[in-house]
């Protein structure tokens, strides 16, 4: 059975819809990531699930319970906030014990469960500390332990890593992933960071202006984005505009490319930079291209290309060999396999 189901969930603020008929399902033990730009309604969605704001319309079900009108303290949902939101006047132990005490568990049980939860986040030795005596990363791990110890039906995390510095962020991210796997707890994490989303999520939900733009595995979203919005939000890409017909796409500048799938009615195609194969010279499989800019990125080299007709492409290829000596102004060849040309639906087509 699904751990959580959102059915046409909507939140209006005045006549503005912060979240608009959003439907999705979280499977048992699944790690779902809500991804989207700032202001697209991620936090509002999470807060409706937790019960901090009331849904305007739609339904939230947890297992077989309809919790849409249930107050937050009766939902049994673990919440982790961006700013940790620990209780500053309570020790780490009491912070983690808080939920168990509300559930009137016996003292001995509280002791063992808090110790186990702190062990999970490797903070066994910190039980007696006050929150402000700890680093940001440690505080966020306490917050995670505090949310997990009550064995919630689902764990919600709202940009939990964005207040941490870059190095710590990677560390806590990996821990979070391992912990979620270990406990097998259904989880929704909100982020605007695509790397975070790709590395954590079993499935990603890309949101735009209060609506779901696309739902899928990281691979699906990367390889088959449904819209230009998804394609530009996940990874980087070259977007070429023009007209598609059958297995051919012709750009505005008149460049005609073969495609693996039919592209009838397609007005925009996506080509990922790393899908372009560069060679020192043009040949039957490679169109002539002039190098406009070269950027050495270590393992990869990024090359901006200008095609004869006026199309511009960004290509990325493993550094080394001839590529290390390439210079702006040089003419090289660029091969674009038909399966690398991905037709995109019209803007917002998937949203209706």
């Amino acid at each position: 059975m699904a751990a959580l189901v959102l059915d046409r969930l909507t939140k209006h603020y005045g006549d503005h819809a912060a979240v608009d008929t959003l439907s999705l399902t979280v499977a048992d033990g699944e790690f779902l990531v809500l991804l989207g730009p700032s202001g697209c309604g991620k936090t509002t969605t999470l807060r409706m699930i937790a019960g901090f704001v009331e849904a305007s319309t739609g339904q939230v079900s947890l297992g077989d319970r309809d919790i849409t009108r249930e107050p937050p303290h009766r939902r049994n949902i673990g919440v982790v906030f961006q700013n940790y939101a620990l209780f500053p006047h309570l020790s780490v132990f009491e912070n983690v014990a808080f939920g168990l005490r509300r559930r009137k568990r016996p003292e001995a049980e509280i002791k063992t469960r808090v110790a186990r939860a702190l062990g999970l986040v490797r903070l066994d030795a910190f039980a007696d500390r006050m929150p402000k005596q700890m680093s940001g990363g440690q505080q966020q791990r306490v917050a995670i332990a505090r949310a997990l110890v009550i064995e919630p039906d689902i764990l919600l995390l709202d940009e939990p890593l964005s207040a941490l510095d870059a190095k710590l962020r990677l560390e806590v991210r990996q821990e979070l992933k391992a912990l979620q796997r270990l406990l097998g707890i259904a989880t929704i994490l909100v982020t605007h960071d695509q790397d975070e989303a790709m590395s954590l999520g079993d499935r990603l939900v890309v949101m735009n202006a209060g609506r779901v733009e696309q739902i899928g595995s990281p691979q699906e979203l990367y390889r088959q984005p449904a819209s230009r919005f998804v394609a530009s939000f996940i990874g980087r890409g070259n977007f070429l505009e023009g007209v598609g017909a059958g297995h051919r796409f012709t750009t505005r500048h008149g460049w005609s490319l073969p495609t693996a799938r039919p592209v009838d009615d397609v007005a925009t195609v996506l080509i990922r930079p790393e899908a372009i194969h560069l060679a020192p010279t043009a040949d039957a499989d490679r169109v002539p291209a002039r190098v406009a800019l070269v950027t050495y990125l270590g393992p990869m080299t990024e090359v901006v290309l200008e095609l004869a007709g006026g199309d511009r492409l960004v290509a990325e290829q493993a550094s080394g060999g001839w590529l290390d000596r390439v210079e702006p102004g040089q003419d090289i060849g660029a091969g674009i396999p038909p399966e690398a040309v991905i037709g995109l639906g019209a803007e917002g087509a998937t949203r209706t």
Partner: protein
Amino acid sequence: MATGRAMAWRRAGAMAPASLLVLGFLVLPMLLMLRYSFNSFVPGKFMVEAVTVENYVKLAADPYYRHVLGLTLTVSISVTILTLIVGWPVAQFLARTQTRHKGLLLLAVVLPLFVGNAVRAAGWMVAFGREGLVNRLLQATGLIDVPLQIMFTPTAVIIGIVSVNLSYVVLTLSSVIEGIDRRAEEAALSLGATPFETWRLVTLPLALPGLLAAGVLSFILSMNAYATPVLLGGPSFQMMAPVVADQVLQRANWPFGASLGFVLMLVTLGLTAGANWLVGRRYGR
């Protein structure tokens, strides 16, 4: 080290003018009063230069002054508790409301302060009279048959002082409540705390320093209240500030007035420090 010390000096230098002002306007008059309180009072000759503790002895020995001090404390503690209880919901509403008219609401809280204490007390006198608004209302709603005696009772004085202090308490509390992280309250709710438990276990402890500050403010203001007890309490209701004024203005007994004033200040300071210590100990701050 050297730069730290240089900075400390520079900061001290910058603070010097303000410090001198405080010294001149606050500390000097107080020292003067302290000196007066050790002088001697001779009827007909007024204040006579001396170093004696006779004023303090008289104060301690006379049960009348103990009664006045006791009454002042009772009224002040009642007022403080009442202002905190009545002020909290208003302050919480002000701090948490999403309305665009917050400025107007704040103004409404401050507005009563535009009316001086004496004028306000006069207003209460009209309302509290046997034929006043309060009695009329109570009779109209059928709660009482015979008009209540409100004027010249402790109730009148307490209501009067509460109405003055409430503005200060609401302003202090609402700024403190505004500073409380709502996410911490939401975290408590998500962990299974009822709204009341959340308030008791998270909001209240986090607001405690502000509650203390507001309480101290209200307490000090009532300990030193003058116009309200005089006008609403009447001649037989004696609180400290009017008694001090009476000694100085009516009897021209500066030494005794000064010693009364000092005892009032010390008791106020002592209780304030005590409350501070209690709260600090309870919450390890």
